[in-house]
Protein backbone atom coordinates (compact mmCIF):
# COMPACT_ATOMS: atom_id res chain seq x y z
CA UNK A 1 0.00 0.00 0.00
CA UNK A 2 1.51 3.31 -1.08
CA UNK A 3 0.46 5.34 2.00
CA UNK A 4 2.92 3.43 4.21
CA UNK A 5 5.86 4.48 2.02
CA UNK A 6 4.61 8.03 1.76
CA UNK A 7 4.04 8.10 5.50
CA UNK A 8 7.73 7.45 6.15
CA UNK A 9 8.67 10.38 3.90
CA UNK A 10 6.19 12.60 5.66
CA UNK A 11 7.57 11.90 9.12
CA UNK A 12 11.19 12.30 7.97
CA UNK A 13 10.49 15.69 6.49
CA UNK A 14 8.45 16.71 9.52
CA UNK A 15 11.46 15.95 11.70
CA UNK A 16 13.74 17.99 9.45
CA UNK A 17 11.31 20.89 9.54
CA UNK A 18 11.23 20.84 13.33
CA UNK A 19 15.04 20.85 13.46
CA UNK A 20 15.23 23.82 11.10
CA UNK A 21 12.59 25.76 13.03
CA UNK A 22 15.08 25.94 15.89
CA UNK A 23 17.61 27.99 13.89
CA UNK A 24 17.80 31.66 14.75
CA UNK A 25 19.77 34.51 13.28
CA UNK A 26 20.15 37.77 15.18
CA UNK A 27 21.58 40.80 13.45
CA UNK A 28 22.05 43.73 15.79
CA UNK A 29 23.69 46.78 14.18
CA UNK A 30 27.35 47.09 15.15
CA UNK A 31 27.40 50.88 14.89
CA UNK A 32 24.54 51.71 17.21
CA UNK A 33 25.55 55.01 18.84
CA UNK A 34 22.80 57.56 18.35
CA UNK A 35 24.43 60.95 17.71
CA UNK A 36 23.56 64.22 16.06
CA UNK A 37 26.02 65.12 13.31
CA UNK A 38 27.01 68.74 12.67
CA UNK A 39 28.99 70.18 9.78
CA UNK A 40 30.77 73.57 9.90
CA UNK A 41 30.44 75.87 6.90
CA UNK A 42 31.38 79.40 5.88
CA UNK A 43 28.44 81.71 5.30
CA UNK A 44 28.79 83.36 1.91
CA UNK A 45 26.03 85.09 0.01
CA UNK A 46 25.50 85.67 -3.67
CA UNK A 47 24.57 88.99 -5.28
CA UNK A 48 20.89 88.40 -4.52
CA UNK A 49 21.64 87.88 -0.83
CA UNK A 50 21.02 84.13 -0.89
CA UNK A 51 23.14 81.87 1.32
CA UNK A 52 25.62 79.79 -0.66
CA UNK A 53 25.51 76.33 0.89
CA UNK A 54 28.13 73.67 0.94
CA UNK A 55 31.41 75.45 1.66
CA UNK A 56 32.89 73.34 4.44
CA UNK A 57 35.45 74.97 6.75
CA UNK A 58 37.65 74.00 9.65
CA UNK A 59 37.16 76.03 12.78
CA UNK A 60 40.42 77.81 13.61
CA UNK A 61 39.43 78.78 17.14
CA UNK A 62 39.28 76.38 20.06
CA UNK A 63 35.74 75.05 20.45
CA UNK A 64 34.24 73.88 23.73
CA UNK A 65 30.70 72.43 23.78
CA UNK A 66 28.43 72.11 26.78
CA UNK A 67 25.00 70.45 26.84
CA UNK A 68 22.66 72.20 29.24
CA UNK A 69 21.37 69.86 31.90
CA UNK A 70 24.10 67.30 31.37
CA UNK A 71 26.46 69.17 33.73
CA UNK A 72 29.51 68.20 31.77
CA UNK A 73 31.60 69.47 28.89
CA UNK A 74 31.00 67.21 25.93
CA UNK A 75 33.76 68.54 23.67
CA UNK A 76 36.77 70.30 25.14
CA UNK A 77 39.14 72.46 23.14
CA UNK A 78 38.35 71.07 19.73
CA UNK A 79 40.48 72.71 17.02
CA UNK A 80 40.71 72.52 13.28
CA UNK A 81 37.64 70.32 12.88
CA UNK A 82 35.03 70.72 10.16
CA UNK A 83 32.25 69.12 12.19
CA UNK A 84 31.27 67.43 15.41
CA UNK A 85 29.06 64.68 16.79
CA UNK A 86 26.98 65.26 19.92
CA UNK A 87 24.75 63.02 22.04
CA UNK A 88 21.05 63.81 22.20
CA UNK A 89 18.95 63.64 25.36
CA UNK A 90 16.64 60.63 25.60
CA UNK A 91 13.67 62.35 27.18
CA UNK A 92 13.92 66.16 26.91
CA UNK A 93 11.73 67.93 24.37
CA UNK A 94 14.44 70.54 23.72
CA UNK A 95 18.21 70.23 23.94
CA UNK A 96 20.32 73.31 24.56
CA UNK A 97 23.83 73.29 23.10
CA UNK A 98 26.29 75.98 24.17
CA UNK A 99 29.29 76.65 21.92
CA UNK A 100 32.29 78.63 23.16
CA UNK A 101 34.99 79.70 20.66
CA UNK A 102 38.30 80.92 22.04
CA UNK A 103 40.85 82.51 19.72
CA UNK A 104 44.61 82.74 20.09
CA UNK A 105 44.27 86.02 21.98
CA UNK A 106 42.14 84.20 24.54
CA UNK A 107 39.00 86.05 23.48
CA UNK A 108 35.84 83.90 23.79
CA UNK A 109 32.69 84.18 21.73
CA UNK A 110 29.58 82.18 22.63
CA UNK A 111 26.52 80.93 20.84
CA UNK A 112 23.61 78.80 21.93
CA UNK A 113 21.57 76.39 19.80
CA UNK A 114 18.14 75.11 20.82
CA UNK A 115 16.93 71.90 19.17
CA UNK A 116 13.30 70.91 19.66
CA UNK A 117 12.59 67.26 18.90
CA UNK A 118 10.33 64.28 19.33
CA UNK A 119 11.87 61.21 20.98
CA UNK A 120 10.82 57.70 19.99
CA UNK A 121 11.97 54.28 21.10
CA UNK A 122 13.53 52.08 18.49
CA UNK A 123 14.48 48.43 18.42
CA UNK A 124 15.82 46.10 15.76
CA UNK A 125 15.24 42.85 17.59
CA UNK A 126 14.22 41.89 21.14
CA UNK A 127 17.78 40.58 21.56
CA UNK A 128 19.28 43.96 20.67
CA UNK A 129 19.49 47.02 22.96
CA UNK A 130 16.64 49.51 22.69
CA UNK A 131 17.62 52.96 21.46
CA UNK A 132 16.02 56.38 21.46
CA UNK A 133 15.75 57.98 18.06
CA UNK A 134 14.82 61.61 17.50
CA UNK A 135 12.97 63.65 14.92
CA UNK A 136 13.99 67.31 14.81
CA UNK A 137 10.97 69.60 14.89
CA UNK A 138 12.78 72.92 14.89
CA UNK A 139 16.08 74.66 15.57
CA UNK A 140 17.14 78.21 16.48
CA UNK A 141 20.32 79.87 17.69
CA UNK A 142 21.98 83.06 18.77
CA UNK A 143 24.05 84.80 16.12
CA UNK A 144 27.28 86.04 17.66
CA UNK A 145 29.46 83.79 15.54
CA UNK A 146 26.78 81.69 13.90
CA UNK A 147 25.12 83.06 10.81
CA UNK A 148 22.61 80.31 10.07
CA UNK A 149 21.81 76.75 11.18
CA UNK A 150 20.16 74.44 8.64
CA UNK A 151 18.51 71.11 9.31
CA UNK A 152 19.66 68.83 6.51
CA UNK A 153 18.32 65.58 7.97
CA UNK A 154 15.73 65.70 10.77
CA UNK A 155 16.11 62.02 11.64
CA UNK A 156 18.73 61.51 14.34
CA UNK A 157 19.69 57.86 14.62
CA UNK A 158 22.83 55.78 14.16
CA UNK A 159 23.16 56.07 10.38
CA UNK A 160 25.90 58.75 10.72
CA UNK A 161 24.32 61.15 8.20
CA UNK A 162 24.76 64.88 8.71
CA UNK A 163 21.81 66.40 10.53
CA UNK A 164 22.79 70.08 10.86
CA UNK A 165 24.87 72.58 8.92
CA UNK A 166 26.21 75.48 11.01
CA UNK A 167 27.19 78.51 8.90
CA UNK A 168 29.62 80.89 10.59
CA UNK A 169 30.18 84.52 9.83
CA UNK A 170 33.20 84.92 7.60
CA UNK A 171 35.81 87.47 8.72
CA UNK A 172 36.15 90.17 6.03
Amino acid sequence: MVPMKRGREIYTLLFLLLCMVGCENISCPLNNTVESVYGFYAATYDEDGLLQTGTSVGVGDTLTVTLLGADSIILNRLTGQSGMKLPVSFYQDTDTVELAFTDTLNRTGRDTIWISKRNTHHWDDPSCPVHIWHKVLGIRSTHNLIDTVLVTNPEINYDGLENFQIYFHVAQ
Partner: protein
Amino acid sequence: MLAIGLSTSQNVSAQQVVVVETDSIVVSADSTLVAEGSKVVGKLTGKKERKIHFINGFGVGADLLGLIQKGFSSDNTMLEVMARVNIKERFFPVFELGLGEADHEGRDLNNRFSIRAPFFRIGCDYNIRYKHADGNRFFAGLRYGFSAYKYDLDSPDLLTDPVWNTSQPFHLHDLSGNAQWLELVFGLETRVWSIVRAGWDVRFKFLLHEKTDEVGEPWFIPGLGKRPDGIGWGGSFKVMFDI
Protein backbone atom coordinates in the same frame (compact mmCIF):
# COMPACT_ATOMS: atom_id res chain seq x y z
CA MET B 1 -6.65 10.16 -24.85
CA LEU B 2 -10.10 8.68 -25.05
CA ALA B 3 -11.17 5.28 -23.89
CA ILE B 4 -9.34 2.23 -25.03
CA GLY B 5 -9.96 -1.38 -24.35
CA LEU B 6 -8.65 -4.87 -24.91
CA SER B 7 -10.45 -7.81 -26.21
CA THR B 8 -7.73 -9.64 -28.03
CA SER B 9 -4.89 -9.68 -25.56
CA GLN B 10 -3.72 -13.11 -24.53
CA ASN B 11 -3.74 -12.11 -20.87
CA VAL B 12 -7.23 -10.73 -20.64
CA SER B 13 -10.59 -12.18 -21.33
CA ALA B 14 -13.37 -10.19 -22.87
CA GLN B 15 -15.25 -10.13 -19.57
CA GLN B 16 -12.32 -8.44 -17.83
CA VAL B 17 -12.03 -5.62 -20.30
CA VAL B 18 -13.09 -2.19 -19.11
CA VAL B 19 -12.56 1.32 -20.25
CA VAL B 20 -9.18 2.15 -18.83
CA GLU B 21 -8.45 5.75 -19.51
CA THR B 22 -10.65 8.79 -19.68
CA ASP B 23 -9.44 12.33 -19.66
CA SER B 24 -6.91 11.86 -16.94
CA ILE B 25 -7.36 8.78 -14.79
CA VAL B 26 -6.20 5.23 -15.31
CA VAL B 27 -8.59 2.74 -13.80
CA SER B 28 -9.04 -0.97 -14.39
CA ALA B 29 -10.64 -4.18 -13.31
CA ASP B 30 -7.92 -6.61 -12.27
CA SER B 31 -4.18 -7.15 -12.27
CA THR B 32 -3.55 -7.96 -15.91
CA LEU B 33 -2.00 -5.68 -18.48
CA VAL B 34 -3.91 -3.32 -20.66
CA ALA B 35 -2.56 -2.47 -24.09
CA GLU B 36 -3.45 -0.17 -26.90
CA GLY B 37 -2.48 -2.09 -29.97
CA SER B 38 0.98 -3.36 -29.03
CA LYS B 39 1.65 -0.55 -26.56
CA VAL B 40 1.24 -1.23 -22.87
CA VAL B 41 -0.42 1.75 -21.23
CA GLY B 42 -1.14 0.58 -17.72
CA LYS B 43 -1.50 -2.22 -15.28
CA LEU B 44 -4.86 -3.42 -14.14
CA THR B 45 -4.87 -3.15 -10.38
CA GLY B 46 -8.29 -4.20 -9.29
CA LYS B 47 -9.40 -0.69 -8.39
CA LYS B 48 -12.91 0.40 -9.12
CA GLU B 49 -13.53 2.89 -11.84
CA ARG B 50 -13.92 6.43 -10.54
CA LYS B 51 -15.30 9.28 -12.52
CA ILE B 52 -13.66 12.69 -12.21
CA HIS B 53 -16.12 15.56 -11.97
CA PHE B 54 -15.38 19.21 -12.49
CA ILE B 55 -16.01 19.84 -8.79
CA ASN B 56 -14.58 16.60 -7.52
CA GLY B 57 -15.00 17.27 -3.84
CA PHE B 58 -14.16 19.48 -0.90
CA GLY B 59 -11.62 19.15 1.85
CA VAL B 60 -11.05 20.58 5.28
CA GLY B 61 -7.99 20.18 7.45
CA ALA B 62 -5.71 21.52 10.12
CA ASP B 63 -1.98 22.03 10.49
CA LEU B 64 -0.51 19.86 13.22
CA LEU B 65 2.91 21.53 13.16
CA GLY B 66 1.62 24.47 15.19
CA LEU B 67 0.10 22.16 17.79
CA ILE B 68 3.39 20.24 18.01
CA GLN B 69 5.33 23.51 18.42
CA LYS B 70 2.92 24.60 21.15
CA GLY B 71 3.43 21.25 22.86
CA PHE B 72 7.16 21.86 22.89
CA SER B 73 6.61 25.28 24.53
CA SER B 74 7.93 27.14 21.52
CA ASP B 75 7.89 30.91 21.91
CA ASN B 76 5.97 31.24 18.65
CA THR B 77 3.19 29.17 17.15
CA MET B 78 0.71 29.32 14.33
CA LEU B 79 -2.53 27.36 14.59
CA GLU B 80 -4.42 27.11 11.35
CA VAL B 81 -7.24 25.37 9.54
CA MET B 82 -7.88 25.16 5.83
CA ALA B 83 -10.64 24.44 3.34
CA ARG B 84 -10.28 23.69 -0.33
CA VAL B 85 -12.11 22.65 -3.45
CA ASN B 86 -10.98 19.81 -5.68
CA ILE B 87 -11.40 20.82 -9.31
CA LYS B 88 -10.91 17.83 -11.63
CA GLU B 89 -8.26 16.41 -9.26
CA ARG B 90 -5.93 18.99 -10.75
CA PHE B 91 -6.61 22.44 -9.27
CA PHE B 92 -7.23 23.01 -5.57
CA PRO B 93 -8.28 26.56 -4.65
CA VAL B 94 -7.56 26.86 -0.93
CA PHE B 95 -8.33 29.19 1.95
CA GLU B 96 -6.27 29.04 5.13
CA LEU B 97 -7.25 30.78 8.35
CA GLY B 98 -5.13 30.86 11.46
CA LEU B 99 -4.01 32.47 14.65
CA GLY B 100 -0.35 33.38 15.14
CA GLU B 101 1.15 34.20 18.49
CA ALA B 102 4.56 34.83 19.96
CA ASP B 103 5.91 35.63 23.38
CA HIS B 104 9.63 36.00 22.96
CA GLU B 105 12.28 37.22 25.37
CA GLY B 106 15.46 38.64 23.91
CA ARG B 107 18.71 36.77 24.34
CA ASP B 108 20.90 38.30 27.09
CA LEU B 109 18.36 41.10 27.54
CA ASN B 110 15.03 41.32 29.29
CA ASN B 111 13.18 42.81 26.32
CA ARG B 112 9.97 40.89 25.70
CA PHE B 113 8.09 40.91 22.42
CA SER B 114 4.51 39.65 22.28
CA ILE B 115 1.87 39.43 19.57
CA ARG B 116 -1.35 37.51 18.98
CA ALA B 117 -3.38 38.07 15.83
CA PRO B 118 -5.32 36.23 13.11
CA PHE B 119 -4.17 35.80 9.55
CA PHE B 120 -5.46 34.33 6.33
CA ARG B 121 -4.03 33.00 3.10
CA ILE B 122 -5.76 32.41 -0.18
CA GLY B 123 -4.36 30.64 -3.19
CA CYS B 124 -4.37 27.55 -5.33
CA ASP B 125 -2.45 24.28 -5.54
CA TYR B 126 -1.80 22.37 -8.72
CA ASN B 127 -1.60 18.59 -8.51
CA ILE B 128 1.28 17.59 -10.74
CA ARG B 129 0.32 13.91 -10.40
CA TYR B 130 -3.27 14.43 -11.46
CA LYS B 131 -3.03 11.59 -13.99
CA HIS B 132 -2.38 9.07 -11.26
CA ALA B 133 -5.36 8.00 -9.20
CA ASP B 134 -3.32 6.21 -6.54
CA GLY B 135 -4.34 8.58 -3.74
CA ASN B 136 -1.07 10.49 -3.69
CA ARG B 137 -0.75 14.09 -4.79
CA PHE B 138 2.27 16.23 -5.48
CA PHE B 139 1.47 19.91 -5.26
CA ALA B 140 2.96 23.15 -6.42
CA GLY B 141 1.02 26.21 -5.41
CA LEU B 142 0.88 29.88 -4.58
CA ARG B 143 -0.58 31.76 -1.62
CA TYR B 144 -1.31 35.38 -0.84
CA GLY B 145 -1.24 36.06 2.89
CA PHE B 146 -2.43 38.99 5.00
CA SER B 147 -2.41 39.80 8.67
CA ALA B 148 -3.25 42.95 10.65
CA TYR B 149 -1.88 42.96 14.17
CA LYS B 150 -0.93 44.79 17.31
CA TYR B 151 2.24 44.01 19.20
CA ASP B 152 3.93 44.90 22.47
CA LEU B 153 7.50 45.39 23.60
CA ASP B 154 8.27 45.55 27.30
CA SER B 155 11.25 45.56 29.55
CA PRO B 156 11.35 45.36 33.33
CA ASP B 157 14.51 47.48 33.26
CA LEU B 158 14.64 51.27 33.17
CA LEU B 159 16.13 52.82 30.08
CA THR B 160 18.77 55.27 31.31
CA ASP B 161 20.17 58.25 29.46
CA PRO B 162 23.92 58.04 30.17
CA VAL B 163 24.60 61.75 29.55
CA TRP B 164 21.64 63.41 31.25
CA ASN B 165 21.28 60.61 33.85
CA THR B 166 17.52 60.29 33.54
CA SER B 167 15.63 57.01 33.45
CA GLN B 168 12.20 55.95 32.35
CA PRO B 169 10.36 52.63 32.22
CA PHE B 170 9.91 50.99 28.88
CA HIS B 171 6.46 49.60 28.05
CA LEU B 172 5.27 49.98 24.47
CA HIS B 173 1.82 48.51 23.90
CA ASP B 174 -0.61 48.23 21.01
CA LEU B 175 1.87 49.11 18.31
CA SER B 176 -0.04 48.42 15.12
CA GLY B 177 0.94 47.11 11.73
CA ASN B 178 -0.06 44.86 8.87
CA ALA B 179 1.72 42.71 6.34
CA GLN B 180 1.09 41.08 2.98
CA TRP B 181 3.19 38.31 1.55
CA LEU B 182 3.38 35.58 -1.10
CA GLU B 183 4.24 31.94 -0.57
CA LEU B 184 5.46 29.37 -3.07
CA VAL B 185 4.26 25.97 -1.90
CA PHE B 186 5.57 22.52 -2.70
CA GLY B 187 4.06 19.52 -0.99
CA LEU B 188 3.05 15.89 -0.92
CA GLU B 189 -0.06 14.29 0.47
CA THR B 190 -1.49 10.83 0.57
CA ARG B 191 -4.67 9.08 1.52
CA VAL B 192 -4.17 7.51 4.92
CA TRP B 193 -7.54 5.89 5.38
CA SER B 194 -10.96 6.36 3.83
CA ILE B 195 -11.52 10.14 3.69
CA VAL B 196 -8.51 10.91 5.88
CA ARG B 197 -5.46 12.40 4.15
CA ALA B 198 -2.12 13.59 5.49
CA GLY B 199 0.56 15.69 3.88
CA TRP B 200 3.41 18.09 4.35
CA ASP B 201 4.63 21.05 2.43
CA VAL B 202 7.52 23.50 2.39
CA ARG B 203 6.95 27.14 1.63
CA PHE B 204 9.15 29.96 0.43
CA LYS B 205 7.85 33.29 1.62
CA PHE B 206 8.27 36.73 0.12
CA LEU B 207 7.22 39.81 2.07
CA LEU B 208 5.35 42.08 -0.35
CA HIS B 209 4.34 45.01 1.80
CA GLU B 210 4.52 45.86 5.46
CA LYS B 211 3.26 48.75 7.55
CA THR B 212 4.84 48.91 10.96
CA ASP B 213 5.02 51.29 13.85
CA GLU B 214 7.99 53.66 13.67
CA VAL B 215 9.26 52.18 16.92
CA GLY B 216 10.31 49.02 15.18
CA GLU B 217 9.31 46.05 13.11
CA PRO B 218 7.64 43.05 14.77
CA TRP B 219 9.89 40.10 15.50
CA PHE B 220 7.13 37.73 14.36
CA ILE B 221 4.36 38.20 11.81
CA PRO B 222 1.28 35.98 12.22
CA GLY B 223 1.00 33.70 9.20
CA LEU B 224 4.47 34.57 7.93
CA GLY B 225 6.50 33.53 10.95
CA LYS B 226 9.73 35.04 12.23
CA ARG B 227 10.74 38.10 10.26
CA PRO B 228 12.64 36.80 7.23
CA ASP B 229 16.02 38.23 6.35
CA GLY B 230 15.38 38.09 2.62
CA ILE B 231 13.36 35.06 1.58
CA GLY B 232 11.62 33.31 4.45
CA TRP B 233 10.58 29.73 4.56
CA GLY B 234 8.34 27.46 6.52
CA GLY B 235 6.16 24.43 6.21
CA SER B 236 3.16 22.60 7.45
CA PHE B 237 2.06 19.11 8.30
CA LYS B 238 -1.64 18.78 7.67
CA VAL B 239 -4.34 16.26 8.33
CA MET B 240 -7.28 16.67 5.99
CA PHE B 241 -10.68 15.17 5.42
CA ASP B 242 -12.26 14.80 1.99
CA ILE B 243 -15.93 15.67 2.09
